[in-house]
């Protein structure tokens, strides 16, 4: 069984190698190869899962060493895998959702001539992500971490002919680098503290290290998580990352990669448990981001960017839960899994809509699509109900637990966190209802006839292609089937996990669990959640359901305008980081030119001058040479004698 673990990573890696090195020969069947290998990886995962279920809950973890990677003196870093319940959960999510999205992409990317390459990148992503969650040490995890960063960069910029996509890819990569630096520093700190990177010794010895060091490690891990999971303050790349093809947004930037930060924090739980200050930072980041993302999501008219804001917000919930310690780890992962289903479903739905609408992303130009795209409507609707936490659906079970856990933190902190989580739930209900209403309900706002109140709505510069009237249609079955499967997951996964606390019992041996003591009863929290949910939905209905929606966005309030600009994140980064950075580099360049180059050129010039003078000694006369030898010998003898005299 252990050998199968390596195969999990190797199979998609083989796919990537085949597809990226195989050349044009594979153009015709590349997408099938990619999909079959992804599915094979899922099957291996399922076999391992069945095997794991067959064993007692305390000896479920498997370990497999592939080879010794860096043996240096007494230190060793191995390429070794560890498959426990936490990794298993991720493996099934990654390969399962991954396979569905491969299938979806067959249809979605049908007309793209670089489809083979796209599937190669997708397989590369799967391999890297599996490496990330299966590694048994932080160094190998880092390899996977960088691998998913690379795959993400390649896929965001997949349509590199669009400058916006190329820029977005670069932005994602650079912002992620900031987080990566955090991870590398954390790993170095671990090495100096524990002398190893391997999870088991690091985590079991975490109690023995000084709290200061653990706090430093924890904060650096948090920085890494912020980068990969688009949490404040490193959130700015996720919205732009929607420039990538929609399946990518669904797989990488909603369901799997962006949750790597949650995995990292949960996996390093022992460190955070022993470093309360770092934990406080984690919950703060989580709470701020869940509100930040939700507010941004309210203001976006681009359907994918609205969903991206929502992703940010939902991961904020997970980070919040992970920061709560043993009260929250299980629920963080549970929400991660249910979110993986419904957010992937929502993105695929959005992709399906865009596919039907000539790649139009502005929701103000949708409207009334429920009649034209029934399957998309139903699956998207189920995802919508799941994400807002409609009772009985997946999101309800997981999000409710997180809100409960936030209150259970206790004290003022608990009230603040619980309040933020509740407020987030209300805003979630609002913006998701808005997306739903704008897209599928109301009047149709597409077509060439401009609505009477907006005579000059179409900007003159738009290309001719945008003027052809869209003919909304249902997507092909390769796209709808994955959507249906994900919708089923969105509906039932949460309930299934909660029957008999199945998920809690499954994960508890790895992450630990404690109940905390909540000032509010579970019923009270649920009731409160229902109330804010209803308020959110009602507000959205009042604003977008009852009144016709204008095709161009109204100017809006100050907050709306700020939220449209992602709450000024880019302006902030520009003023706080880019400008000072530019001044710094300009200063450094100045110093380099004037000072460093001056010294270097001066040295070179003086060496050259010296050389020119010295070579004159070489005048070609043997007598001069002999004198030089004679003088040299004299000095040699004198120096030797002098040494003795001294």
């Amino acid at each position, binding site marked *: 069984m252990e050998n199968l673990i390596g195969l999990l990573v190797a199979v998609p890696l083989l796919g990537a190698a085949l597809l990226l090195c195989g050349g044009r020969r594979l153009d015709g069947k590349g997408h099938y190869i990619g999909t079959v290998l992804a599915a094979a990886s899922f099957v291996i995962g399922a076999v391992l899962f069945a095997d794991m279920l067959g064993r007692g809950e305390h000896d479920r973890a498997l370990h497999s060493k592939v080879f010794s990677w860096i043996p240096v003196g007494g230190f060793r870093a191995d390429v070794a895998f560890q498959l426990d319940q936490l990794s298993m959960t991720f493996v099934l999510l990654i390969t399962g959702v991954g396979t569905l999205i491969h299938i979806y992409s067959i249809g979605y990317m049908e007309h793209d001539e670089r489809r083979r390459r796209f599937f190669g990148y997708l397989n590369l992503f799967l391999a890297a992500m599996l490496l990330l969650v299966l590694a048994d040490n932080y160094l190998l995890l880092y390899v996977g971490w960088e691998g998913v960063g690379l795959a993400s960069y390649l896929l965001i910029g997949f349509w590199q002919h669009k400058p916006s996509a190329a820029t977005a890819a670069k932005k994602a990569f650079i912002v992620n680098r900031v987080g990566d630096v955090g991870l590398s520093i954390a790993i170095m700190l671990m090495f100096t503290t524990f002398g190893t990177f391997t999870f088991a010794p690091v985590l079991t010895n975490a109690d023995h290290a000084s709290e200061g060091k653990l706090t430093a490690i924890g904060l650096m891990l948090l920085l890494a998580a912020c980068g990969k999971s688009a949490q404040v303050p490193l959130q700015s790349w996720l919205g732009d990352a929607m420039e990538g093809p929609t399946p990518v947004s669904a797989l990488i930037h909603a369901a799997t990669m962006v949750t790597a930060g949650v995995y990292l924090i949960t996996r390093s739980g022992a460190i955070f448990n022993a470093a309360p200050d770092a934990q406080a930072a984690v919950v703060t980041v989580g709470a701020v981001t869940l509100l930040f993302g939700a507010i941004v999501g309210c203001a976006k008219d681009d359907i994918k960017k609205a969903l991206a804001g929502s992703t940010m917000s939902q991961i904020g919930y997970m980070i919040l839960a992970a920061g709560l310690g043993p009260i929250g780890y299980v629920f963080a992962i549970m929400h991660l899994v249910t979110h993986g289903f419904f957010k992937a479903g929502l993105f695929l739905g959005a992709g399906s809509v865009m596919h039907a609408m000539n790649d139009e992303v502005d929701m103000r130009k949708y409207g009334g699509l429920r009649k034209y795209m029934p399957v998309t409507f139903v699956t998207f609707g189920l995802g919508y109900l799941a994400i807002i936490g409609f009772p009985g659906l997946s999101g309800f079970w997981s999000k409710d637990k997180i809100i409960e856990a936030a209150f259970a933190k206790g004290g003022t902190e608990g009230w603040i966190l619980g309040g933020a989580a509740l407020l987030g739930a209300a805003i979630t209900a609002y913006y998701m209802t808005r997306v739903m209403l704008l897209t599928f309900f109301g009047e149709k706002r597409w077509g060439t006839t401009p609505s009477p109140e907006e005579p000059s709505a179409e900007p003159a510069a738009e290309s001719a292609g945008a003027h052809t009237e869209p003919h909304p249609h249902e997507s092909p079955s390769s796209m709808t089937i994955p959507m249906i499967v994900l919708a089923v997951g969105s509906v039932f996964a949460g309930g299934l996990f909660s029957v008999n606390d199945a998920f809690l019992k499954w994960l508890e041996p790895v992450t630990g669990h404690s109940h905390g003591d909540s000032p509010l009863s579970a019923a009270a929290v649920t009731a409160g959640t229902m109330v804010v949910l209803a308020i959110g939905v009602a507000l959205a209905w009042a604003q977008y359901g009852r009144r016709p929606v204008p095709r161009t966005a109204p100017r809006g309030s100050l907050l709306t305008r700020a939220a449209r600009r992602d709450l000024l994140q880019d302006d902030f980064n520009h003023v706080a980081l880019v400008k000072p950075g530019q001044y710094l580099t300009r200063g450094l360049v100045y110093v380099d030119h004037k000072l460093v180059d001056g010294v270097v050129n001066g040295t*070179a010039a003086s*060496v*050259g001058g*010296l*050389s*020119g003078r*010295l*070579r004159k*000694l*070489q005048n*070609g006369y*043997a007598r*001069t*040479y*002999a004198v*030089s*030898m004679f*003088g*040299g*010998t004299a*000095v*040699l*003898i004198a*120096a*030797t*004698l002098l*040494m*003795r005299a001294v």
Partner: protein
Amino acid sequence: MIHAATVHSLWTTAAAAPDKIPSPDIEYGQLLPTLIVLGAAIVGVLIEAFLPRRQRYVAQLFVSVVALAAAFAAVIGLAASDYGTSKAHVAAMGAIAVDGPALFLQGTILLVALVAVFTFAERRLDPVVHGNRVDSFAAQAAAVPGGEAEKAAVKAGFTTTEVFPLVLFAVGGMLVFPSANDLLTLFVALEVFSLPLYILCALARRHRAMSQEAAVKYFLLGAFSSAFLLFGIALLYGYAGTVAYSGIADVVDGQVRNVTPALAGTMGNDALLLIGGAMVLMGLLFKIGAVPFHMWTPDVYQGAPTPVTGFMAAATKVAAFGALLRLLYVVLPGLRWDWRPVMWGVAIVTMLGGAIVAVTQTDVKRLLAYSSIAHAGFILAGVIATTPDGISSVLFYLAAYSFVTLGAFAVVTLVRDAGGEATHLSKWAGLGRRSPLVAAVFAVFLLAFAGIPLTSGFAGKFAVFKAAADGGAGALVVIGVISSAVAAFFYIRVIVLMFFSEPRTDGPSVAVPSPLTSSAIAIGVAVTLVLGVAPQYFLDLASQAGVFVR
């Protein structure tokens, strides 16, 4: 009558006591490498005497190659029978040491000589003269340059096949030089390998006057330095009452065994030791080309036929550094607090001097000459370490450096114009566009000289600098690295010139060599890369071989 009686009594005394002179006990088997080479050299002389001209070239080449290969096999055989390690001892009545460094250096010299003989035998580069293929050497060395006799000799298709026995004699001397275990053997070996080199330097086919000038300068200055060396030996004898290394070392350590009555007044006089030691050192530093005894190097390297320059630059340096190591580690270890500071000074001026003057050179052979001076300084840094690592790093450096040098000079023979080799750097401009392969190979050698990683130059430089730093010569390493930086400038400048300049319209062409030179260059590149990429085996070998017998 009295005279006759005295003579008679001398005769009879000598005849009466034959058993008082012990017959020398020579371990011929252990001297086999030297004996093979010298024997082949004599065979070469006989070939010159008795074979018709037409057949000499092939016969000489065959004898040289076979002899050098056989001698190398003998070295390997000795090393395999543990003469380099556990069975190391002093052979031939205390004259010759058979130990690790000696065998390692002899092996290196023999391989270098073998490859050098390939370049000596090259006959495809110069244009055919009167239907005869010619090599780099004068048609008839004794003919006056430009005179009627020379023209006649060229027309008759004469070639100087004597170069092969001359090389073999030189190699024979070089084999003895690093293994000499007494000062007289050292001196004899020095002369045995120097004299053939003087002659070889004078034998260039083109620019004969320059070649002869170089030879005369080399000879004059070499004789001058030999005089110092010999005087130093005399002083050391006066100090120790013996010329044997171990005997001198004993006296230096204060363990005088028996005072020779005639030397009672001078023995143990430290002034003699210090002055004599400095003079012997000077003799060796001259061969190494250390500043300020280096001034012959550029002129001789430039004037000598390029194959000879390559051989000299590589093999002489190996032999001379071997002798220097033995002198400093076996004879004068008790004196190291005296010689180390002095050698520090020599190493510093050698590294800086070589590197700085090379910056403004315009002739590729002179450039390589100054580069060899700078490299002598780097190697001296390893010598000064006075640790076992110092010995092994110097051995490794010598092996690595000698193949780079041979290869580089072999490439120089290929770039030619109407006047023969085009050695002026301006003519090398744009060579990389015309002959990318040759330029790339030369670039590899230059990078190795500069000590860029993945070349043998880096591994060697790293080893000597590390040994020097561990041996407490950190400041020397700093200066070495600064010199390397200066040196990198002129190596890389040549690469820039070859690859990033417009080719000149009247630029040289690259001759297509025979397999001989091609294989010499290929061996150079291969050794450079192998020692650069996987140096560990050879470093281990050098460190196994790094113990001197005493």
